[in-house]
């Protein structure tokens, strides 16, 4: 592999992240600054304003941490989609400016592909069936003939969004800026009694909207302990996720299972997937903390892989793609020789 360094910018949603990696896959810096809404969910324009405010600072900090001079960089990568338009455009603008000022090639990266690639880089998984779970995505995918094919996904909201909305709709008190999924996880750990909730699996697809509505109304009834509701909510949602992953595993007959994305940080979900994978004799791995949530490193690394396969984008054609699906992207670097 040729020598070089790539700086990657991630800005699909509430995180503005910058990562620096070498072409060999050494991670040199991973700096992140998150937009925290006053209340409610992510306001795209407000988040974009935040990204614009912190962009300079985060890029400088990442370069400083990596001990690399701007002139030593070989490549600039940015997340081109999918995501929130205003946020994506802010990151893209920063990336274009850097590429143009430093006269470097630019690579647009698919955010979902990046979550899979960072999982593979950090865990050594080669050809896994991947469960990618975050605030915006819930996808079961695996490599097949040049692309990551989608075997299952949510039919409505993402599981992370379901967890977040559940906390926001409730009157659970929480510390501002703390991941809402972690609040559910902590409360659920103290719950014991299972209250039946809608369990919606359709083939390898799933749906979370009914579960969200039912769980929120359980809380509002005030008949149950909040710990028990969180426990039941989490058990139901994660059992659904594990079941569809298991279905896809039986269908694809892959030998590895990879858990990636922001919700991958949940230890209960990790446990369930580990038990399931072991039952099928598959090796289970989970992306390490620091690389589960959105980050610039995954963009930088996927940028390297793309660039080494001739996939760069001229600045004038580097439009963001807010609805860019995972299975639309060619991934020529995943060759059969990597897959034993």
């Amino acid at each position, binding site marked *: 592999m040729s020598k070089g360094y790539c700086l990657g910018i991630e800005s699909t949603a509430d995180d503005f992240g910058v990562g620096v990696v070498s072409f060999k896959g050494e991670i040199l810096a991973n700096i992140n600054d998150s937009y925290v809404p006053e209340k409610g969910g992510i306001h795209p324009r407000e988040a974009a304003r935040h990204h614009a405010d912190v962009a300079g600072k985060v890029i400088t900090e990442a370069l400083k941490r990596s001990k690399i001079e701007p002139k030593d960089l070989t490549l600039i990568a940015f997340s081109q*989609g*999918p995501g929130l338009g205003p946020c994506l455009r802010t990151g893209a603008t920063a990336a274009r400016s850097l590429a143009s000022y430093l006269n470097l090639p630019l690579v647009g990266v698919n955010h979902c592909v990046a979550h899979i690639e960072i999982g593979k880089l950090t865990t050594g998984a080669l050809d896994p069936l991947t469960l990618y779970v975050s605030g*915006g*995505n819930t996808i079961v995918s695996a490599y*097949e*003939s040049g692309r990551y*094919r*989608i*075997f299952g*996904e*949510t*039919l*409505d*909201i*993402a599981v992370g969004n379901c967890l977040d909305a559940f906390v926001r709709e409730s009157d659970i008190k929480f510390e501002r800026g703390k991941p809402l999924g972690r609040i559910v996880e902590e409360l659920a750990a103290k719950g014991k009694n*299972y209250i*039946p909730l809608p*369990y919606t*699996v*359709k*083939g*390898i*697809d799933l749906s979370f909207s009914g579960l969200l509505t039912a769980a929120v109304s359980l809380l509002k009834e005030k008949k149950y302990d909040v710990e028990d509701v969180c426990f039941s909510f989490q*058990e*139901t949602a994660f*059992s659904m996720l*594990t*079941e569809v992953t*298991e*279905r896809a*595993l*039986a*269908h694809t007959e892959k030998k590895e299972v990879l858990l990636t994305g922001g919700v991958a940080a949940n230890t209960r979900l990790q*446990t*369930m*997937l580990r*038990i*399931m994978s072991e*039952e099928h004799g598959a090796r289970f791995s989970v992306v390490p903390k620091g690389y589960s949530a959105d980050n610039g490193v995954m963009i930088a690394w996927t940028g390297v892989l793309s660039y080494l396969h001739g996939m760069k984008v001229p600045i004038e054609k580097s439009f963001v793609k*807010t*609805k*860019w*699906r995972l*299975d*639309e992207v060619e991934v020529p670097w995943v060759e059969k020789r990597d897959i034993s």
Partner: protein
Amino acid sequence: MKKEILVKKGAEASLYLQKWHSRKTIMKKRLSKKYRIPELDIAIQAQRTKRESQLMHRAKEAGVPTPIVYFVDLQNSTIVMEYIEGKQVKQVLDELPSNERIKICQNIGELVGKLHRAGIVHGDLTTSNMILTPKDDIVFIDFGLSEQTWEDEPRGVDLHLMKRAIMSTHFTHVDECFKAVIEGYEKVLGKKATKEVLDKITEIERRGRYITER
């Protein structure tokens, strides 16, 4: 019951080949999942065993070939059913010449149409759940996720899943296959109902988080 041979360990159940009152049968035993808490696990297993046996029978009444159900044991989440000779459509579809592939897909579409007309939604329409017999009949299996409904929404989801299964498994023939499925479906349900379901599929696809409008 004796001399069971494990023929397939699926995601959800194990299938055993056995003689049952001198018939060649499949015993489908749903497995308890260690990752799920027992309360949830027991409820899911019981519900699916019940639905599967009931709707497999209803499907036959609707003119859709399914294995005959001989025996149901809810306590042990077990169904004993007829053994179907043949191959999974998944295994043969890509290998066939185009005209035969289209014929099979049209046939599948007709069968899905017949299910929907009878108010049955299969819930897991993949080509692994269809068996092509030596007589070229298609037999639907695995009704564990099926439900009874006449609404457009679940019908749309059913066909959307079928399309997605074709996209991920038979990606070289997606357009040809799905078009043929819809032709068969339309033969049974007519133009109007088919259009309504197709519109529903588009709506479902647009509802997804990141789907380019095609």
